[in-house]
């Protein structure tokens, strides 16, 4: 029987979550403080500022950039950003000729340790459905107008590889410190729907 029509209203989602927490607690299956700790851990570790630091280092240090493109997980770990479960991280370098953009069409897999937990727009059906079909038009609608001569490569995270885009360093940032450079790298540029721009 399909549940999709003519049914009683669902309990509100916040009530459903509370109900599961309480049911688990009543059985002694929810250790005190576990959920709070896990959320704190996510807030500390899964932050796009990590990816921004990786990018800034790659812009300033050619040897690091080479290591990053050869083994994204190992190079990110040099800066202290370690992925769970020895994640396989492939870094995709944007150039004048090729622009890379990431999606997970079937769910919303993301390299949490460098990009952070994914934003709502990345998890939306609209993005997941459309970016593989008309990436140039979608990015234009999102504010990034790529010249026709730039080829686009869309990477669908359908397997266990995780991706991060290495955006292009904007002109006018000569002599900037690593910290200052990291400050202008956005989560959107790490996914590939925006360029890094001067503030």
């Amino acid at each position: 029987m399909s549940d999709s029509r003519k049914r009683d209203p669902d309990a509100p989602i916040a009530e459903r979550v509370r109900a599961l927490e309480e049911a688990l607690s009543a059985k002694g299956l929810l250790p005190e403080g576990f959920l709070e700790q896990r959320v704190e851990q996510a807030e500390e570790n899964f932050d796009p500022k990590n990816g921004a630091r990786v990018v800034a280092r790659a812009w300033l240090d050619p040897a690091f950039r080479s290591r990053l493109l050869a083994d994204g997980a190992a190079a990110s770990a040099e800066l202290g950003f370690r992925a769970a479960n020895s994640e396989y991280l492939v870094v995709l370098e944007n150039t004048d000729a090729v622009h890379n953009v990431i999606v997970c069409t079937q769910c919303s897999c993301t390299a949490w340790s460098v990009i952070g937990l994914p934003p709502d727009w990345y998890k939306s059906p609209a993005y997941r459905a459309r970016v593989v079909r008309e990436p140039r038009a979608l990015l234009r609608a999102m504010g990034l107008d790529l010249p026709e001569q730039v080829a686009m490569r869309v990477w669908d995270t359908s397997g266990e590889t995780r991706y991060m885009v290495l955006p292009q360093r904007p002109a006018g940032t000569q002599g900037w410190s690593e910290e200052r450079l990291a400050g202008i790298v956005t989560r959107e540029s790490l996914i590939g729907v925006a360029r890094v721009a001067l503030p």
Partner: protein
Amino acid sequence: MYDSRMDGIHDLGGMSGFGAVEIERGEPMFHERWEARAYALNTLGIRILRAYNVHEYRHAVERMDPAHYLAASYYERWFTGVATLLVEKGVVTREELEARAGGRFPLGRPPADVKPLRVTPPPQPRFAAGDSVRVREIHPAGHTRVPRYVRGKHGVVVRASRAFEFPDLAGHALPAHLEHTYHVEFEAGDLWTDAAERRETVVVDLWESYLEAAP
């Protein structure tokens, strides 16, 4: 009762009509307290209770009623997957959840009866960068990670990636072998007959048994 195929609503690549993509400036990690709690409950289910694995979690979300899937926010889908598995594994019952929630508690539909595979995949990768391949035209009844929009399509291997657990088995808590995966590049014009965009490609990460050699 339920149709047996798993060409589910989650497999959204190439669909149309979902409207604009809006970026929220300064978006918080969680918008509401329950989202953070739901997020952490999945870690509890996988790592502490060891009730299920991440592949089963993905499949539980895929088994949501399609109308509910599209209407739900990301963390509502996430939470529905977690609750579905904890009920199916006998950790909690739907009745006690409904009693505590004070109303209906939607869960995913039951999984297909997927059989274990008795295959030993080759230890060496079958394909290498530059090889032409075709994605098998398959429609598995259970969990799979081959998107519909590349089935039957020709592509070129751009990278022989690592071997990972085969999700079509792991998603059903069956013993899953390690199998080589490949980053396979498809031309937009080969994927979409109406492709207006000519200088685009899509790279999809595919397990070896989803692929066959193409002349």
